[in-house]
Structure formats: structure tokens, C-alpha cells
């Protein structure tokens, strides 16, 4: 399971402040904490705190100085993604994200090729978020084809079927599970499949339970990447346990620790 730590995001006040004041303390703290918790990638997102692509470069740089962990450059803006990619010091990097919109694919897929990056594609298009299984599969396949045609291996392609809050769109969770399974049939080996996990618990009182239960169910259908709160110990324990149930890891009594060490 590839875990992408979600915490270095300007949606959180401490990170937004860090970007505004250029005080790296909070960013460093979360880079270390998420790495120790077992994150494979650290998502880095300047969000609405800044419109300046240079701030993405600054954020990437701070993280790189703090930890050796791979980085997920997260933005909807191409210029911001480019600034993040240019700042990468040669370590592994994931572009988060493109959509299935052909105009966007045309610009972002070549960036993944040029920077030897992995590419996360959201199953969205110019009509917005998908509301059923078919649209999710269609858009995912569109991203997959565009990336493959440009020469990316399935191992460098990550598809995200768009997870929505359970509280407000209850029927969508089942559609996401079905889309995940269909993505696994795209190729052999299949592309990676990811969700923005925290979305499903949005505004719910029992959000941690919802997140944890969905993640385990989705792993059983083929999910192998999640952008999530990696510092949630129970969540990590659930992932480590699910990996054993799926026979992806060798059992040991300290298997949760083993899972964190191996990341």
C-alpha cells in the first residue's frame, strides 16, 4: 500500500501561515511526523494560500531538506505543478493531478514524461465530477490511455475514481468501489488506484470510522494508494492488517511496525 501524507496542504491553517510568513517550522514538523508514520509520498499543496508558483517551489524545498521521502506535487494549476517539479532534487515525484480533460492531458502528460514522474489522474472531465460507475471508468480509461501512449508504464499511472462525502452522497461510495475493481482490469499489471480518503468522512461525526472502514473495503477491491491522514495510528494499523489478509505482506507479530519500517 502506498500512503500519501495529506497534511502539508494550505487548507490547514498552520501550513497556510508557513507559506505566508516563510517560516518552515510547521512544514518540517509534518514532513518528519508523516515520514515516521509510514508515508511513501508527502503531498505538497499551496491551495488558496498563494497564487505564486514560487511558493510551491519553496514548499517542496523545505520538505526536501527535512526528509528523504518522495513528493506528491499537488495543484490544479499547471504552472504551479511545473514550479514544484523543477524544484525536485532527483527523488521520486508524483504529479497530483490531471483530469481526463483532453486539454489538460495534453499539457500534463508530457510533464510526467519529462520529469520522470508518476501521474495521478482524477476521473473528472470538463463536465465535472462523475456521478456513476460508467463515467468513472470512462474517464479513468481516458487518462490511462493518454499516459500509456506517452510511454508511461502502468506502474507510473495512478487513477483516482473521485471519492465523495458519505454523509451527503451515500450511494457514491459503492460506485467508487465498483470503479476501483474495473480499473484493475485495464492492464496486467494494473495501474495504481488511489482515493483522497478523507473526503468520505467529510463533516461526519464518526469520520475516522468511516474513513477506516471504507479504506479496508476498497483495498479488497484493488485500491493500493491513498492520500490520507497517515498520522492516524488506527488507520495505519487497519491498512497493515488488511495487507496481511490480502496476503501481500509476510506476517510477523510486530506487523504494524514492520509496515511502517518498510515504507
Amino acid at each position, binding site marked *: 500500500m502506498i500512503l500519501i501524507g495529506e497534511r502539508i496542504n494550505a487548507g490547514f491553517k498552520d501550513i497556510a501561515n508557513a507559506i505566508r510568513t516563510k517560516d518552515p517550522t510547521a512544514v518540517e514538523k509534518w514532513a518528519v511526523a508523516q515520514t515516521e508514520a509510514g508515508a511513501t509520498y508527502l503531498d505538497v499543496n499551496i491551495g488558496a494560500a498563494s497564487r505564486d508558483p514560487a511558493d510551491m517551489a519553496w514548499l517542496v524545498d523545505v520538505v526536501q531538506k527535512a526528509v528523504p521521502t518522495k513528493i506528491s506535487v499537488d495543484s490544479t494549476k499547471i504552472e504551479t505543478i511545473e514550479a514544484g517539479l523543477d524544484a525536485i532534487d532527483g527523488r521520486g515525484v508524483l504529479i497530483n493531478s490531471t483530469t481526463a480533460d483532453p486539454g489538460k492531458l495534453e499539457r500534463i502528460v508530457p510533464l510526467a514524461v519529462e520529469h520522470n514522474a508518476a501521474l495521478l489522474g482524477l476521473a473528472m472531465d470538463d463536465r465535472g465530477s462523475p456521478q456513476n460507475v460508467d463515467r468513472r471508468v470512462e474517464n479513468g480509461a481516458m487518462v490511462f490511455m493518454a499516459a500509456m501512449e506517452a510511454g508511461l508504464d502502468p506502474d507510473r499511472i495512478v487513477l483516482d475514481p473521485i471519492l465523495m462525502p458519505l454523509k451527503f452522497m451515500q450511494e457514491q461510495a459503492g460506485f467508487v468501489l465498483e470503479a476501483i475493481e474495473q480499473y484493475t482490469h485495464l492492464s496486467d499489471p494494473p495501474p495504481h488506484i488511489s482515493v483522497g480518503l478523507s473526503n468520505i468522512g467529510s463533516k461526519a461525526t464518526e469520520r475516522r470510522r468511516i474513513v477506516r472502514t471504507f479504506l479496508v473495503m476498497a483495498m479488497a477491491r484493488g485500491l493500493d494508494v491513498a492520500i490520507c491522514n497517515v498520522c492516524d495510528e488506527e488507520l495505519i494499523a487497519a491498512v497493515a492488517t488488511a495487507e496481511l489478509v490480502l496476503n501481500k*505482506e*509476510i*506476517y*510477523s*507479530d*510486530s506487523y504494524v*511496525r*514492520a509496515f511502517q*519500517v*518498510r515504507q
Partner: protein
Amino acid sequence: MTVEIPDVKKSWPHAINAVTIGATSADGGTRTSTVTIGGETTLPFYLFEGAMPNRPVVAMEVWDVPAGDWPDAVREPFDDVLADPAAWAKKCVDEFGAETICLRLQGCDPNGANRSPEEAAAAAKAVAEAVGVPLIVWGCGSDEKDNEVFPLVAEALSGENCLLGTITEDNYKTLTALGTAYGHKLIAESPVDINMAKQINILALDVGFLAENLVIFPSTGALGYGLEYVYSIMERLRIAGLKGDKVVAMPMLCDIGLEVWGAKEARAPESEVPGWGDVTSRGPLWEAATATVYLLAGADLLILRHPEAVRLTQGTIARLMGGEAG
């Protein structure tokens, strides 16, 4: 008509750790040679697919007390040196081509000669002075006694970058601390159990011992005595390591001589088992055959006893690595 043969080559995302044993003067030791094991990027001898940058290595076993219970066939080559571990080790290196010496501190066994930690340290020091090859030092197997013996032995061999063992799930804190303090590598032992093989590594890592300094000992069974169980465990460990499970991506060691020479097939004289052939050649062959199987399972370090088994095994390694037969 041409038949296209599909390309079955697989690329593994990770490599097995490479572990160097021994330190020359350049690295603060007194060894004249070192050995490096591990580093594979593919399954054993899949040289068409990936790399085995380091050849599997053969170590020869030496005891700190005369090996009274060794059968005649394997004791005779050492009859003149059995009372002197230093001379024994030197003979293994000079005459039989041992690349490494494994000193087994059998004499410390409380149920045997019960030799003192000071005597063990003196024996280890004497062997280190007699030969220039890297050293493996193996305890007597009594946790309590080993924990008294190893502090002195590890200190006596300080800086020599030896491979010491073994640590187990029940007894790892003393040796991991000594390994870190005196710069030695460690053997992590488990009883033919893949889950425990992983667990002991995690325990060692959690007390701060580095994964790169561990060698896995998954236990060894002689041919005919559970070898296939160990084989499948080694195979699974190696595949998991190549796939990226850093907790099991270590080189593996097999303690072959000890097991083989306890087996009836290596010990029983022809008078007892008519038709089995001459015991003086049967034993070494049993040892070499066992070693060959473990090479195919992924063994990186083989501890052997009989000079003929050593010669045959080194030849097998050379052939499998694509060189000339030895």
C-alpha cells in the same frame, strides 16, 4: 517455422542488502581480505535477468574445543589440529581454501566443557591472529552463557567487523548492543518459521540495530531432514525482499555442516547400511548436495565442515556464476 519465445524477464523493484564481513587495516581492522555477500537484484542465479554482484561464500567451521563427536570421515582431515583452534583455522584457509572461518564456541556450553568467557575471547583472538580471512563467531546456544561470553569476544575482536550470532526473538538485546558498540554484523535466527524470521529483524531494528548489518539464518535442515521447508521459507523471504519488504531484504546464511554430519546418511558406516557406499565419500557428497540445494534457494553464506564438500561447493558456485569449474 519459427516459434517466438516470450520474454519472461522480470524486473524487481528492490535489491537485497549487501553485507561486508571483515575489516582490513584501511577500515580499522587487521583482516587481509573481506567478503561481501548479498546485493542480488534477482532470484538465485537468474543471471539472464538481474545481477548477483557477490558470489555466495563458503565458510569453514572451527571449534574452540576438539570436535570429539564429529564422525571419523569429517574429523580426520583435522586430526592434527583439533586441539588448537588457531592451527585448525589456518589449515582451513591455507590447505582447503576457506574464504571465511566460522569459530563455533562449542566449548562454552554449560552442559559440556563450560569454558569461561575469557577462554572464549582468547580462542577468538588466537584465530584472528592466525588467519587473515573474515571471521564468523557462533555462540554455544545457551542464551545465558552466550550473554556472558559475547561481551568479551566482541571486545576482543573490536573493529574486525565480524559476523556474530545468533540473535533470536528471546535473546537479542545483548548482542545488538555489542554489535553496535564494537562494529560487528549479526546473524538473526528463527526456527524454520518465516513469520519469526521477520519478527526478529523488526526487534533488532527497533533497538536501533541497522538492517544493513543483519544476515538472516532461517535454520538449516540437512538433505532428507526438512530441507524443503527451509527452502520454501528462503524462497519466500527472497521474493519478498526483492519486492521491497526491507525488513526481510537481507542475505541468508545456512549452517550446513552441523546438520549434515548429524544425519545418518553422512555418518553410518557401510557395514551398518550395506549398499549405501563408502562413508568417507558419502558424507562429503551429502554435505555438498545439501549446499547445492541451498544455493538455489538463495543462500549467500554456507558454513561447511569437510574439505571435499568445500571444494565441490566452490566448484558448483563457480559453474553457476558462469565461470570455470573449480
